[in-house]
């Protein structure tokens, strides 16, 4: 018997499904491009890409656009895609539609570690900047391992409750830690911390954006490559194993990719809540739970939502701007309550 048989035909989708997939992803990509065009030209620094190309802008405006607006747009795409994509992946991993980097405490764990770093090592030189990323990654990874350990211990119907309570405890702890840090921090650090805690893309400069550009796409690709495995996992662990899944490897990879991506996102943009819950949830209602479509669609949808929300955050209170994390939480919080009230998590 040939031991290395690959399952030919399994990866191939029937044509109508393939075109459905391409249609959905193409539509979302187009919407994202339009949103980027709008976001590029809106706000107090409104320059449309057309004007940029035709050169109808002053050199000063152009420079400002390249230095401030472009990294901000890119960061919006990366952070939105990462948060929504990791939300979809975690929901698949926990086999539960309520999992989300914010609710499970991943974001606040990363946030606390970054805050500790910022207060203890003030300054924005390269050392401080990259230290933030490492701190964010370690914080997210620590919380991820803790939460996953808890979830495994309490399998079955109690798992959801355990997860949400663990997330609550971690969020509370991180809040208390943040309070402690507020004592130690200088006035300027304090303001920086509190603004950053609300989540914002306003501080995006090329330095941070480049780091995100290097680290986030691999994390996204790593998650996308696990789509079929996440599908299999939905059958339950024993059945998925019999269907060819290495569950431990899947868990390790999703946890690593999510921790890396979310850690980096939190380090650059603070805590932008509920994106990871909201986007996969809405898309699952539309597209069904299959991860091969849900994961890429969530990433595009998350990027779309964050770019639009960030644009609105700039426009709504002109010339000042709202932290975009406030906006997404205002959107996501009520939606989450609505889901709980409706009592049907199965979508």
């Amino acid at each position: 018997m040939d031991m290395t048989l690959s399952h030919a035909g399994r990866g191939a989708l029937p044509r109508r499904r393939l075109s459905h997939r391409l249609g959905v992803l193409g539509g979302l990509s187009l919407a994202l491009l339009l949103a980027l065009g709008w976001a590029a030209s809106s706000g107090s620094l409104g320059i449309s890409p057309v004007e940029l190309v035709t050169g109808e802008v002053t050199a000063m405006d152009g420079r400002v656009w390249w230095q401030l607006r472009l990294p901000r747009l890119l960061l919006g795409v990366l952070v939105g895609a990462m948060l929504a994509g990791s939300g979809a992946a975690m929901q698949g991993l926990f086999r539960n539609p309520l999992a989300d980097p914010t609710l499970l405490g991943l974001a606040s764990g990363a946030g606390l570690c970054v805050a500790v770093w910022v207060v203890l090592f003030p300054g924005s030189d390269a050392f401080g900047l990259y230290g933030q990323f490492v701190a964010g990654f370690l914080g997210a990874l620590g919380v991820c391992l803790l939460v996953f350990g808890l979830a495994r211990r309490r399998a079955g119907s109690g798992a959801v409750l355990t997860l949400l309570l663990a997330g609550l405890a971690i969020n509370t702890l991180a809040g208390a830690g943040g309070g402690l840090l507020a004592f130690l921090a200088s006035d300027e650090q304090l303001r920086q911390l509190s603004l950053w805690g609300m989540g914002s893309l306003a501080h995006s400069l090329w330095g941070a954006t480049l780091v995100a550009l290097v680290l986030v796409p691999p994390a996204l690709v790593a998650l996308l490559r696990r789509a079929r495995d996440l599908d299999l996992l939905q059958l339950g662990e024993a059945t998925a194993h019999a269907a060819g899944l290495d569950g431990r490897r899947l868990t390790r990879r999703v946890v690593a990719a999510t921790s890396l991506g979310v850690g980096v996102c939190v380090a650059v943009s603070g805590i932008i809540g509920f994106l990871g819950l909201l986007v996969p949830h809405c898309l699952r209602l539309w597209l069904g739970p299959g991860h091969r479509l849900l994961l890429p669609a969530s990433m595009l949808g998350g990027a779309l939502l964050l770019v639009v929300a960030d644009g609105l955050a700039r426009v709504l209170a002109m010339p000042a701007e709202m932290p975009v994390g406030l906006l997404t939480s205002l959107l996501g919080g009520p939606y989450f309550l609505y889901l709980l009230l409706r009592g049907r998590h199965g979508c």
Partner: protein
Amino acid sequence: MLNLHHAGLIDTPSLSPLHGEVRAGELLAIVGPNGAGKTTLLTLLSGFRHSQLGPVTLDGWFLDAWTPAALAGRRALVAQFEPTGFDWRVRDLVVLSGDPGDAAVAEIMGQLELSRLAGRGVLSLSGGERQRVMVARALCQLAAAPRDDKARDGGLLLLDEPTSALDIGQQQRMMRLLRRLAAERHMAVVGVLHDLNLAATYADRVWLMAAGKRVAHGTPDQVLETERLALTYRAELQALERDGAAPWLALKP
């Protein structure tokens, strides 16, 4: 095709040493009281749990030596239904672990009377319907595997209480289907069964488990003796003779 040399181990403390063989072309029923180790045994046969002191071999190879993908083409498991939080469409769930092509899927879904339910969400189904969906999924998984040696056998199908939520008509059709798969597709079918009469009527061989031990094995009429079952299950039983079939085991009122 499947050989089990289980010599007691770390991963499965509830199961005593056991040596056995599962053959292609036959329907093997595993029966026994609650907590006898039937499900543990099934996960051992599937390779989900490891037997560290005694190996499980499939086609002469240790389960560990198979690649997960190749093994998935040779054996499939239908566990007791684990609810997933997500509402899969029946058709999508059936081909989740392997898509043998539209014609084969339609045939399998027809055999399990699921054609009508293809577009329904799995969360809206009854327990019995879900059970049939999961059996169809396992059959699709085996059918999807490339088989250059089709002549040899149809693979190994492990089922944990596949009839527990089915009405009697569905039970009969399910058991007949399993028999047919063993006889015509030359599959090895292993089912944990609670209904002793189903085992007596349809199985080729029976393993009787009690307290982690296999206490008897053989053909149904060798194993399913009223006295032995009454002792094992601590139940008062009565065997009712039937024409041309194994006696019907009934509970004394």
